[in-house]
């Protein structure tokens, strides 16, 4: 069996002989709950990650609803300030570590082996382990909300001394749950990186790799480099709080600002961990629906690598107001602004890919286009925040909240939704309910802008973040923001319905290629993708 096709960006020929494999040995797919608990199959584990991420997305979203309900009107209405703080903290932690990161790891599990023609991930048992410790970690984190004194209330950035001197006992639970999340991320990243280094099909050279694989390779490197630093930071918080050390206490020679340096050395690469795979996804979807190869494949790879390297030298732009010599503020300002160059290259390439393409607007493309526009808005507000003297005004206002929700919700989350709609037919073999999916898109698009765009205005006017009350002049905008928030939250229930329908195999059967313009190894195998793929590697020419 030989099929020759083109890979999108570089016109390589692919020979796939996947249909030879079934006589090699018979597989039965295990049944019942134990299939999911004991599995070593990258597709099963990918599915587990994605469902876990979705559940966490709805959980964290419910917390955001509490926040928006409280902020619907000025004054303290619904929850105690301390509980409000717990909601902002756990909302952030869940969305970052429970929703966005596991979703990308789930996509990597499903897609990387299929895209590079590998039989599975390189280390399948460890793959299972790195997933199954996550639900336990989040059980601990969520359970801490019900302990005496309440859960973590110091913001997801857990700045000292809020997390040390002034925190409650559940900080210990928080610290150990973050440790487990870190272990999970590191193992997941090692698995991805080793798979890509060692499991590529013959002929799949570096510069023929699909961009989702490239961006994940670089993401995995970032994860292995910075998650241990986070582990170090929470360890120091633990000893400062419970064992009398003074890393972050000036009375013992330490410095609270040191916490911020260590945290953001992790935290800024973390931001790119949450967006680089999104860049990869968009680089697959845009060429498919523009029916043109990706413009500037090589520059995309180099841009991704430059963003990753620069991400290690920009961390202190989160700390312009917390005490640094002027030359350091200058350095971090310029280094940060430099990142907009490779990011601009990417946006340019996506637009250039669409230029004179024969475009159609299927659901994944709608999300991808929304991503390009709205992520760019988030990127530009980031550029404003990068300017040190300007940041002195914006720091800790809703402008910052608007900025990072544009890059994370309409950036990372929209790209995840685009990816789900793009590859879901390949996974289930059935086309999802397009009408509902379009409803999901338009409801999300409108509500998300009602939700986050006015945050720019109240932020510029000086409304501080993480406070359960605000002064009267912000009331009108905050009501709009809350209405947008509730609408966005409800819109996600449409997504839930679409995905459940698809998982129950409702809908029209799809072809192997699914989308007319789709290219790449994953579109060469049958739909739905068989339980085991590429047991004999294809040859990529």
């Amino acid at each position, binding site marked *: 069996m030989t099929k020759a096709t083109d890979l999108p960006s570089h016109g390589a020929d692919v020979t796939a002989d996947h249909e030879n494999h079934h006589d090699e040995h018979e597989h039965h797919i*295990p049944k019942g709950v134990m299939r999911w608990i*004991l599995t070593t199959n990258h597709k099963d584990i990918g599915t587990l990650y994605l469902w876990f991420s979705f559940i966490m997305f709805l959980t964290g979203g419910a917390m955001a609803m509490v926040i928006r309900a409280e902020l619907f009107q000025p004054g303290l209405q619904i929850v105690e300030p301390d509980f409000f703080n717990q909601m902002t903290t756990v909302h952030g932690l869940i969305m970052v570590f429970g929703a966005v990161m596991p979703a990308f790891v789930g996509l990597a599990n499903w897609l990387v082996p299929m895209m590079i023609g590998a039989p599975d991930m390189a280390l399948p048992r460890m793959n*299972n382990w790195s997933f199954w410790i996550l639900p336990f970690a989040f059980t601990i984190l969520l359970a801490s909300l019900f302990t005496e004194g309440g859960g973590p209330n110091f913001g997801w950035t857990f700045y000292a001394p809020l997390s040390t001197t002034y925190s409650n006992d559940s900080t210990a639970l928080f610290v150990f749950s973050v440790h487990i999340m870190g272990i999970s991320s590191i193992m997941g990243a*090692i698995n991805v990186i080793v798979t890509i280094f060692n*499991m590529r099909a013959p002929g799949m050279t570096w510069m023929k790799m699909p961009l989702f694989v490239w961006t994940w390779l670089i993401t995995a490197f970032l994860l292995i480099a910075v998650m241990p*630093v986070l582990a170090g930071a929470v360890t120091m918080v*633990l000893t400062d709080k419970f064992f009398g*050390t003074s890393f972050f206490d000036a009375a013992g020679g330490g410095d609270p600002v040191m916490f911020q340096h*260590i945290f953001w050395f992790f935290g800024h690469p973390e931001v790119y961990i949450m967006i680089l795979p999104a860049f990869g996804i968009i680089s697959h979807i845009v060429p498919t629906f523009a029916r043109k190869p990706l413009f500037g494949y090589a520059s995309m790879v180099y841009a991704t690598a430059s963003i990753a390297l620069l991400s290690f030298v920009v961390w202190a732009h989160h700390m312009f107001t917390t005490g640094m010599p002027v030359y350091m503020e200058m350095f971090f300002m310029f280094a940060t602004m430099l990142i907009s160059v490779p990011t601009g290259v990417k946006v340019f390439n996506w637009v250039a890919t669409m230029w004179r393409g024969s475009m159609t607007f299927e659901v994944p493309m709608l999300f991808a286009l929304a991503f390009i526009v709205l992520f760019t808005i988030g990127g530009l507000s980031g550029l404003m925040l990068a300017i040190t003297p300007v940041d002195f005004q914006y720091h800790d206002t809703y402008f910052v909240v608007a900025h990072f929700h544009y890059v994370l919700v309409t950036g990372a989350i929209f790209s995840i939704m685009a990816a789900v709609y793009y590859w879901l037919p390949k996974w289930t073999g059935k086309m999802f309910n397009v009408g509902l999916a379009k409803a999901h898109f338009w409801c999300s698009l409108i509500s998300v802008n009602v939700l986050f765009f006015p945050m720019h205005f109240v932020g510029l006017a000086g409304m501080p973040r993480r406070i359960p009350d605000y002064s009267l002049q912000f009331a009108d905008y905050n009501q709009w923001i809350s209405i947008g928030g509730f609408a966005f939250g409800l819109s996600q229930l449409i997504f839930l319905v679409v995905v459940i329908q698809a998982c129950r195999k409702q809908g029209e059967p799809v072809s192997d290629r699914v989308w007319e313009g789709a290219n790449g190894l994953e579109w060469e195998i049958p739909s739905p993708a068989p339980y085991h793929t590429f047991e004999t590697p294809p040859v990529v020419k």
Partner: protein
Amino acid sequence: MQQSQSYEKYYVPAQSPWPIVGAVALFLIAVGAANVVIESTRDASGYGMHILLLGLAVLLVMIVGWFKNQIDESMAGLYSAQLGRSYRQGMSWFIFSEVMFFAAFFGALLYARTISVPWLGGASNNAMTNEVLWPQFQALWPLVTTPDGTQTQAMGPAGLPTINTVILLISSVTLHFAHVGLEKGKRKQLTWMLGATILLGCIFLYCQVQEYIHAYNDLGLTLQSGVYGNTFFLLTGFHGMHVTLGTIILLVLFFRVLKGHFTPDNHFAFQAGSWYWHFVDVVWVMLFLFVYVL
């Protein structure tokens, strides 16, 4: 087809019970450890220690079961050269993550030495910080008097730390000769050199315990004595934990060697253990330099 001639099958294991056992173990360890921490500082009694020990026991079961499974597969010849490369690359990246973990604490040490302590003493443009907060505070390193007046004595490099450095450096050499012995099929050299490495590791740990006793009893250097003591104990403490783990790994390898495992061209476990040991050594050299000497 041409490629199937040179194609070696990649071993994808069937279902395995060990990861979920390990997940439960980590859950118990985290819950137990958190409760131990809370109980110990609040003088409360609870089940923290029980949960922690149960978790450690489950983890031990998982490690033994998983490794036995792994060793059986390896001895049955199920592994290809490609899988061996996956394991080696995985181990290298794991060690890189460990490097970054230590980097966080070295970073804290360097920050305290070069920024926070001098600033508290009034360096750069912080004269008023010193004047308003702790006017009597003198910036010195090692920080023998903290701004709030906690006193301690510094742990110099002479004596035990130097002896320990020599011990660990020699242990790296003996382990290397053990590896050479394995690759050349000299089993006797392998056994003796590996045994010597384990012995040196144990001596190192013994000396480290003595040093901690000396620090607490004679120098007044404790975990509570300011950022100097903090960085000292966390860096040497985490290093000590790694030496302990490394010694256990080498011990397991030793028994596997006695059982006749490993061949000159199939000994990933030995190589991984050896890499880990050399990594722990390098960390010590950095420690010796930045914590004790400089």
